[in-house]
């Protein structure tokens, strides 16, 4: 069921991976296309989850709404789903970020209900 929801992201233009991941680095579910989720990528996701939460807390204990890192070829968007669970989307830089963030918000409740 979770795969079906993640597939909604994968059918978006130039999206390469949709991953539900726990703060400890454990991947709960993922859908990918043309990208390998290796240890290095898992480490990146873990680092981002921990660091972004800590950094957001420096703004008077603000909660993290979204984290976005863009390189010249790919970008990664990470949003908290619930407590220690996050949704990460990896896409080529030609992907439509507005559409991705819209789908993230739209599908958040459905993902929560499956965790």
């Amino acid at each position, binding site marked *: 069921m979770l795969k079906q929801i993640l597939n909604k992201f994968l059918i978006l233009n130039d999206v390469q991976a949709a991953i539900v991941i726990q703060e400890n680095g454990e991947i709960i579910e993922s859908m990918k296309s043309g990208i390998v989720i290796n240890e290095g990528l898992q480490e990146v996701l873990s680092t981002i989850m921990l660091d972004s939460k800590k950094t957001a807390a420096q*703004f008077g204990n603000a909660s993290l709404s979204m984290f976005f890192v863009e390189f010249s070829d790919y970008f990664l968007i990470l949003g908290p789903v619930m407590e220690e669970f996050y949704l990460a989307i990896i896409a080529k830089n030609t992907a439509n970020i507005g559409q991705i963030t819209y789908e993230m918000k739209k599908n958040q409740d459905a993902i929560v209900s499956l965790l």
Partner: protein
Amino acid sequence: MIDQLPEGKSIGWMQAPPQWIFSHTVRFVGVVHVVIQDGEGFILIKKGKPLIYYFKHGRIELRGHAALDYFNSQPTIEFNLCKYTPEEFSQALKICNVEKTGPETPDMRRKAPDEPAQAEVVEKPTEQLPVISRPEQPPPVLPERPEPVRQIPVTKPAASVPKRILIPQPAVLEEPDIKIIGQIKKLNGIVAISVFNDDRNILLMGDVEIEPLLKIARTMLATTNKITPHLDWGSLVHMTLQIPEGNVIIAPYHENHLCILTTRTINIGHIRRILRDLQQDRSQGVIL
């Protein structure tokens, strides 16, 4: 006297140590409007050479060394660089009663900040000017300044504000860079923009406390340094952290970094395009 000066063409409001002005105005002809707490003043500059220093706080007027000392006593000051045409500059000289060949304050830049200069107080002050203490209230908003924007609360660092100014390194930003930064600052939803490096803040435009913001920017920079070796995704364009109040964006800028603080309503797509363009210009060797 301030009101009589020609308006000139504003390059933008910024915040930096006073010494920054002298090291970044080698080709600048115009006036630097300075605002410190409830007072305001100006420095008339011709190609890096300050001709007049003036500051007014209530009934107290400071000129020359006294005004310069007061500027130098501030860790950072807010100022607006306004370029003059030759006609405007001549008019400003007349208003300030400056002979074209004889500046009122010759080459004050070389004076060490903690070396007291001879005071030239026009009216004897009835109260001591607050030289080092920071304002309790933000400086008054002048009519020509950019619209005030909602400030994202930033927790203050434990470290206290340094009491003496830091002399910046030789010029690191050219006038076109300042223009670009100023243009970004003018975009809707931009609260503040800073150019910083590993050691210090180089330039700040916007009404925020720089140290807490820099601390956050450096934390984000540390995150990029940790993740970049694991990713073969090309060069970093930007990193954006979104919280309910707004966004913090960091991006490479020449050998330095940009930190942009925005409201939540900002058009992220627009900012992305600008940051990408800046980096493309850089990779194509275009001098900004």
